[in-house]
């Protein structure tokens, strides 16, 4: 083998760096690397010089100083005496809250609308088309401002609910009150409160919540085991035991027992004095932002779902019908599993978009990451460089977490090709 074709060793010439394919890409990469590094060095040296001229330094110690501003409805205990770091954490948590709420609601609405656009009901399909086109072709900022204006301008003030013959009434069996300042919703109360677990940094989790989480996860694991046992039985005997009632029991019964044990009950909001008390008053900034983000993202998700369903060839559903499978089961067993692999990748980017779009909260004054770290903290400390770099870093990390999590899901649903 060794004596077949060894070319005579050419002497190395400088021009070979350009003309020889073996070296050319290396040369090119080195040049690009040097250029990029030079550009980076230029940026950094400019920054250093500019900071010197302004007499500023590059330190993150402002994060441990007193913030001195209030955040309405922080998800963890927070006062104006806390540090900027804690304010930033509150901001991140608020971003996460709005992202999770928005993603869940937008997915549900988007799937419904996407399927409805394909329905053979002419009127409903047209209505959904109008909705989708209206939301896709108009800036999100407009929807946020409009929804916020609806809440602020049209809804009644809290004291309109007062009196024998009130001007406004609560909805959902007197449980939710929509006012022009906040939305009052019921909270949960316990007669037998087990106290809370202190996580440090004044963050506490109620033992009851932990109990419910443990019970739910445990129930789900037992359900998996039951399914596995049923499968094993079926493989051995050919008969699949009926398991739905067992699953139902392990999933539901422990929770019901816990509810009974803790004495869980709902506390509806009540008008006392000028405001609603008892329940939870959610600021309209959050509700409006959540609604607008949901409606906007759902329009995009609807199109993704529709495209995914249309991508499944007609023969698949026809084959299913030929086998006598009902339309509903065809959807669940044949169409959706195949459509998911088309739907999930663009869905991931819609979730990411929603997370990034939540930064528009500054339009309505909801204090998420952009409002705390990139807003009030930045203005108070004058640390533009540090604040914005830190904020972008956090957004980047959140995006990476969301996309890697969803990619795991994608790897599970995608077509297993052999």
């Amino acid at each position, binding site marked *: 083998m060794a004596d077949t074709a060894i070319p005579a060793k050419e002497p190395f010439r400088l021009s070979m760096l350009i003309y020889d394919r073996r070296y050319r890409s290396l040369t090119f990469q080195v040049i690009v690397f040097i250029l990029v590094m030079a550009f980076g060095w230029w940026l950094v040296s400019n920054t250093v010089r500019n900071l010197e001229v302004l007499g500023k330094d590059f330190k993150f110690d402002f994060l441990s100083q007193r913030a001195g501003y209030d955040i309405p409805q922080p998800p963890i205990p927070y006062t104006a005496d806390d540090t900027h770091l804690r304010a930033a954490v509150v901001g991140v948590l608020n971003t996460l809250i709005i992202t999770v709420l928005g993603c869940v609601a937008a997915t549900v609405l988007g799937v419904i609308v996407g399927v409805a656009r394909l329905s053979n009901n002419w009127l409903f399909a047209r209505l959904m088309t109008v909705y989708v086109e209206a939301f896709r072709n108009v800036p999100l900022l407009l929807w946020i*401002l409009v929804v916020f204006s609806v809440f602020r301008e049209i809804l009644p003030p809290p004291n309109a609910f007062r009196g024998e013959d009130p001007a406004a009434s609560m909805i959902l069996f007197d449980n939710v009150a929509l006012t022009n300042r906040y939305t009052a919703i019921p909270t949960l109360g316990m007669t037998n409160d087990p106290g809370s677990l202190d996580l440090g940094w004044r963050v506490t989790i109620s033992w009851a919540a932990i109990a419910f989480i443990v019970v739910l996860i445990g129930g789900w694991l037992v359900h998996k085991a039951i399914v596995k046992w049923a499968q094993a039985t079926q493989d051995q005997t050919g008969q699949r035991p009926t398991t739905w009632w067992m699953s139902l029991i392990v999933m539901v019964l422990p929770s019901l027992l816990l509810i009974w044990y803790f004495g869980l009950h709902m506390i509806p909001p009540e008008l006392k004095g000028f405001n609603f008390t008892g329940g939870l008053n959610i600021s309209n900034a959050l509700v409006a932002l959540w609604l607008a983000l949901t409606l906007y993202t759902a329009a995009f998700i609807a199109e993704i779902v529709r495209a995914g369903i249309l991508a499944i060839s007609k023969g698949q559903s026809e084959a299913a019908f030929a086998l006598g499978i009902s339309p509903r089961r065809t959807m669940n067993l044949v169409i959706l599993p195949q459509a998911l692999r088309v739907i999930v990748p663009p869905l991931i980017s819609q979730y990411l978009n929603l997370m990034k779009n939540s930064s528009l909260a500054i339009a309505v004054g909801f204090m998420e990451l952009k409002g705390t770290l990139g807003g009030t903290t930045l203005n108070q400390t004058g640390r533009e460089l540090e604040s914005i770099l830190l904020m972008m870093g956090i957004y980047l990390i959140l995006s990476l977490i969301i996309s890697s999590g969803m990619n795991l899901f994608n790897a599970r649903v995608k077509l297993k090709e052999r």
Partner: protein
Amino acid sequence: MSEIHAQTAQYVRDTMLPPKPPPENDSGVVKWLRSNLFSGPVNTILTILGILIVWLLVNHFWGWFTHSVWNAGSLSECRQLIVERWGEGSTGACWAVIRERWMQFTFGFYPSELYWRPTMAFGLLFVALAPVLFSESRKIRRIVLVTAAVLTLGAMLLLGAPAVWLIFAAAVFAAAIVAAEQRPSLLLIFSLLFPFLGVWWLWGGSLWGPIMALMGLVLGWAAFMLLGRLSPMLAGIGMLLVPLLWWVYLAGAAAQDAERLISLSIPAVASDRFGGFLLSITIGLSGIALSLPLGIVLALARRSDMFLVKTMSVMFIEFIRGVPLIALLFVASLLLNYFLPPGTNFDIILRVIIMVTVFAAAYMAEVIRGGLAALPRGQYEAADALGLDYWKAQRLIILPQALKISIPGIVSTFIGMFKDTTLVTFVGLYDPLKSMSDAVRASTDWKGIYWEPYIFVGVIFFIICFGMSRYSMYLERRLQRDHR
């Protein structure tokens, strides 16, 4: 047997029966209703739900829309008129605010005596776009150009443009219409010049600035041609280096000297006077024009075999895509001055355009990468088999097909970017949606008006974005080469 049977048959009908109309229940409106609205219980429920939604919407908004007032000086006057016309307690839309502030919504705080300049730039934009967007059909080109000419010249007359410029615009349109009939490729010259002219018309000042900027490109081309005889490597370096040196060190001084010799100035307009749809369209169009080439380069870099190039491109794209546009806009308004040499201070609109471009380019790169990945492997192999080098293969075989595949994605990126231009309100620019509505509401006359400005701006955005998406569908159909 069969023959006998046929002959023995007593009677065979020799004419067809006339076709009967389908049963009453299975034709016309009834059938349509039955199959589209009431084919089953679920369908019927959906129909009733749909009718309920429509009825709710109409019930809520019909009165408001029909009780519109177009002529009034203030909101209170509007309300008074509505009460006078339609009785006590009736509400209605007060479109008078749009009528009165129309110019502000369109141009922001641009000097009113110079409104004709952006109008002319916008009209001539269609001349620049005609050879690019409407290259296929002479008829469509004719319609577009004639409509643009009539509308632009009319608008310029109304806005009181000087006669010189009216004649200029008319001449350009006439030349363009003639060129579009005879040699459409001639129009490309205007398309190349338009960015420089457009900047001059919008911002004003001396024409020598754009000319000297253009000179940089000419110099780069000259350097490429001259050095190309020595070595292609030198030519490449020269093509990049010469214009860069020219722009950084010489262009400014040259423009000033030239201006002193021959003055080519028109009144300058500062960036903070820009606003409304003028601002959105300026940022949107520049972003579109700049982000497409940048996106292509990034996509090619991401698919490159070269490890370093690929890594850097991936890092850049993922960084930009992981960060909200607002954060980048804040970088533009607060941080860009930190990154540049001390004393540099350039225009806020330019900074925003840079950031919007970079943002859109990262998304564009991913869309185009999808297109590149969707091309069959055989196309690449065919290009190699023909002995084409990398750039020729990309230019002649790969990119045209990849771009064609990714048209829907590219256009939706454009639409997204155009919608995102409203976010510039957060860095203190007067976007049409929030800043302009707030500015209108700040006056005592229109205090408390919410819906009309939002609806108006929303409708304009809808028209533009919907138009773009329809255009992309047209383009897809036009470029369709497979016969299915």
